[in-house]
């Protein structure tokens, strides 16, 4: 009888834990379009008129660090050259790339004030990627702009952005082709890219 009571308690404990685990997982995973809408809402708030340009840049950099896979984009951007890079070179590159990314990202966006982005549908490409479609709402000065977001979904609890596709033009691909051009123009010397990145960061 005692054993039977123990078993019942164990079964109840096991079932309750299982339900809790399922619930907890459900509550932390987030749909890619909800993740993007939440991210653009945060960015829009950071671009409010009440902040100075410096404050906007600081806030945008923090949002990017939390929501963008800067390391993943860096690895994509260096392309075929990553195979021939030493660990030390890769470490230098990723460090420089993060600084470069945050500088250009914040600089590009800080010019906008109170942008309104409406997130529409999403298309799952595979287990790793979903493309979320959105529209940067038109203003008196410019027409509406179509923005697609490549969301890395491998870890559903930790979604991150890997690319922005503006009117069909991929920012990551543009960056990759620019980096490759710099390296190629310098006979495949990766240090030429490092020098260019340092020069850009110092300006």
């Amino acid at each position: 009888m005692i054993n039977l009571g123990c078993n019942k308690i164990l079964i109840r404990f096991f079932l309750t834990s299982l339900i809790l685990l399922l619930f907890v997982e459900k509550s932390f995973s987030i749909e890619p379009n909800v993740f993007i809408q939440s991210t653009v809402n945060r960015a829009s708030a950071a671009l409010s008129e009440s902040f100075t340009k410096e404050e906007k840049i600081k806030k945008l950099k923090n949002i990017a660090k939390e929501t963008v896979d800067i390391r993943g984009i860096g690895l994509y951007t260096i392309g075929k050259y990553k195979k021939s890079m030493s660990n030390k070179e890769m470490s230098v590159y990723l460090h420089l790339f993060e600084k470069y990314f945050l500088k250009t990202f914040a600089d590009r966006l800080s010019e906008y004030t109170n942008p309104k982005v409406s997130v529409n549908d999403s298309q799952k490409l595979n287990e790793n990627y979903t493309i979320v479609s959105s529209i940067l709402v038109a203003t008196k000065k410019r027409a509406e702009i179509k923005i697609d977001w490549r969301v890395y979904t491998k870890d559903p609890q930790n979604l991150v952005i890997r690319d922005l596709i503006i009117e069909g033009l991929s920012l990551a691909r543009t960056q990759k082709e620019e980096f490759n051009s710099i390296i190629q123009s310098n006979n495949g010397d990766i240090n030429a890219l490092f020098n260019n990145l340092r020069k850009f960061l110092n300006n």
Partner: protein
Amino acid sequence: MKKILVLLLLSTLLSFSANAGTDGENSLSKKNQPVKDCFEGLNRGIFAFNKGLDNVIFEPIAKGYRKLPMPIKLGANNVVSNLSNLITVPNNFLQGDMGNAGNNTARFAINSTVGILGLWDPASRLGFEKEGKEDYGQTLGKWGIGAGCYVVLPVLGPSTARDAVGSLAALMGGDAWYNVTVRNNTHYFRDFDYYASRATSGIDFRAKNIESFDNLEKNSMDFYASVKSLYLQDREKKISNSKKATNTLDDSDWEELETK
């Protein structure tokens, strides 16, 4: 029939030009091949020249154009957009897109008459929506002809061997607007009308993109490479005639990242 023969001849020439610039490898027969920059040194030189021209002439004019009252800018944009149908419609046909060919023909007829030479766009209100522009370069791409070498043309800017051949096809009878203004003496139009419409189209485009260009230049370490990448991506998108970004994305590089 004559136009088709001319296009076929030009396509053949394009194949030769691509072979000449690719170490014997014919990229035209393959899809998703990176476009080679066969004349990079020369292209960079022309790019720098165009940039200088832009700084001194086009950007200041575009900034002035922006200050014009909105109805004038809208009217100018409508007129050049309406004229572009004269290239778009034959290309809709050549691509077998009869739906858009009909829609754009109706747009041109309505806007040129009721819309007073294209100044207004009553066709949109009548349900004939504005669709994407088409040109002979896009048609060649749609027919499976590869881009060939990347080239930068003086004043006109980025292009490819295929797109340059497409532009040539327009000048050899494929553009009705060019035919009635420059090519043939119709007594109704002058050469000036054609060049003025082309210049207005260019200035209108430049005026809409002043901040985007400035921002791109400011945030690029190699502005030439960035412009080249964006131009080629834009052409891929236009040739695919797809509104969905997912149809033109190449995922292989992203997937490769998973295996590292």
